């Protein structure tokens, strides 16, 4: 029983990591119908911005909380900027071309960022500083740290915040309009380029927040850290119904729990295999994902 509860904690803590990254995937997809494969790499860049800014800031501030918040802001702004640059330079020129073109560009971009990062940051793993000192929380013999709780809470807060933004603000309304029909939105006087830029900025900032939170929890960062996490987060987003904010979080948690239980009770060798098998099974029976809405293809 003790081990079982511990596995649930492990699963939720792993799942909330996927959920954080999945939010960005799902947002960009919802607005642009584009799978931004470079998203996992923006997540990696977020971790590295955090790493370097905390090295600059370390010891200059009295409170570790203020330091953490500053590091977060720097990294989120940096990644937002990079997200907007990516959209402006790589995706906007091919927005009118077939969807396959932007997909290939996304993959190419992802490889470009990974290899540039290896060149600039060096390819060996780095140790991410413990911005918030880790504290064990005793829970009847279960192991739980304050950082695991922070990851879960922040994932939920970001989800709620994003939801409020999309459904209750004017920019959010514009975003939904663009997602519904780009040309019609343009005819209604919405600055679609600005909306799409904003979407990328927000999605990338979320990825940066994810990168820092995850790195505090699992402190080894390297330029290829976004590859597998990005892929799994993408799976989580599809699982929950891509384009759906709650779906991303739900998918992340399901994937995290599934992986943990397969590794904990089944065979750890088949951890990824079984996790992806679940994905295939769900997609076979509910192709639009758990919370996705079935869409009629417009003719």
């Amino acid at each position, binding site marked *: 029983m003790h*081990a079982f509860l511990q596995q649930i904690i492990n699963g939720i*803590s792993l799942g909330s990591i996927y959920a954080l990254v999945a939010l960005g995937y799902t947002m960009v997809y919802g607005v642009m119908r584009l799978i931004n494969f470079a998203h996992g790499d923006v997540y990696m860049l977020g971790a590295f911005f955090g790493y370097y800014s905390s090295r600059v800031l370390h010891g200059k501030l009295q409170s570790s909380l203020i330091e953490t918040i500053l590091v977060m802001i720097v990294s989120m702004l940096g990644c937002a900027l990079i997200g907007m640059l990516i959209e402006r330079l790589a995706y906007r020129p091919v927005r009118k071309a077939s969807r396959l073109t932007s997909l290939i560009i996304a993959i190419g971009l992802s490889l470009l960022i990974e290899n540039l990062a290896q060149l600039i940051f060096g390819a060996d793993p780095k140790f991410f500083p413990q911005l918030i000192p880790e504290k064990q929380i005793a829970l009847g*013999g279960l192991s739980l740290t304050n950082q695991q709780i922070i990851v879960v809470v922040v994932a939920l807060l970001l989800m709620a915040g994003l939801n409020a933004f999309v459904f209750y603000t004017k920019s959010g309304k514009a975003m939904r309009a663009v997602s519904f029909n780009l040309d019609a939105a343009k005819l209604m006087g919405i600055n679609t380029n600005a909306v799409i830029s904003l979407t990328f900025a927000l999605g990338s900032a979320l990825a940066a927040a994810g990168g820092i939170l995850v790195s505090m929890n699992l402190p080894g960062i*390297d330029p*290829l850290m976004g590859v597998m996490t990005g892929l799994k987060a993408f799976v989580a987003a599809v699982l929950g119904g891509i384009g759906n904010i709650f779906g991303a979080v739900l998918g992340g948690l399901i994937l995290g729990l599934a992986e*943990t239980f397969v590794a*904990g009770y089944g065979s750890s060798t088949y951890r990824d295999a079984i996790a992806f098998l679940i994905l295939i099974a769900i997609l076979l029976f509910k192709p639009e994902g758990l919370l996705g809405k079935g869409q009629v293809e417009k003719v």
Partner: protein
Amino acid sequence: MRISKRFWILGALSASVIALTGCNKKQAESQNEILIGEYGSLTGATATYGQSTHNGIAMAVEEINAAGGVLGRKIKVITEDDAGKPEEAQTVVTKLINKDRVSSILGEFASSNSLAAAPVCQQSHIPMVSHGSTNPKVTQVGDYIFRTCFIDPFQGQVMAKFAWNTLKVKRVAILRDIKSDYSMGLANFFKQGFESMGGQIIADESYGQGDKDFNAQLTSIQSKNPEAVFVPGYYTEVGLIARQARKLGIKGPLLGGDGWDSEKLCEIGGEALNGCFFSTHYSVDDTSSAIQNFVAAFKKRNNGSLPDAIAALGYDGAKVLVDAIRRAGSDNPDSIRIALTRTKDFPGVTGAITLNENRDAVKPAVVLEVKDGKYAYKETVTP
């Protein structure tokens, strides 16, 4: 369209000019220099292996060239980065053999990468000397493949003996890296050895290189209450595993092999690694003059950084290969191969190197203890 066509022609022309001049230059050089190819993980998750190796090899070659080279010619090492990936290792070794026309190959440390490149060397009849791949399968590829380190059946035995005799533990769990031939082999040999002594393997879990979260496996291991955990992985994952294991309340020591040997291990694992043990090829604390001279020279060359075992192995591997070239009397690959098979009692930093009929070296191993970011010598185990 027009511009791009012109651009292409121009590009093709300049490329061919560069290629032609490059060829001429290379031919002229190769008459005076003996070319040796080196491949290793200079980047990637196992980057410290490739970098340490490179420092060791470069130091050996500098010493040899400063002393006038070999056979009246200087040694030139052409280094290629495989980023720690087997498929890249195969590509760069093919390039070293076919384009650079090297006489012999040095590398790799990670067994999976050596196993990917060895068939290329075997087919091209170019001798390959691995300085640190301990998986037995590496030299089984063929008679052109050599190694100057011990093999995992021995290393697994060393840690099994250490756990049973020195630590006196009876219930051990294994956490192995499923993606690495080295880790899989070492885990199997440890298991065999430990069980034959009467020990009990109570859990055998696995992970994949590149994973960051090991909580699920470690929780499962902890529920079986082991006295020690054998983690024959590479340093990045081992560091993270140690942290997470301590967090989950696993108190016993973690044990491992030479894959732990990197300055990065403690940077990532921190205090969680205190009181853990691993087997490796030599200890910088060894007071023998051969080792102390090597350590001093290495520190002088590399701004005071200490040579890990991988650097010492790289140094030894290069020296053994050059010694074979000297004895062969030419840089003909077949002559080098024959000379290598006759390597006997070569005085290396990591011990006297004699290659047996399987083209493997038989050497002692040392066990080190991790203490506050440093490695303290614990014991030497001879085969």
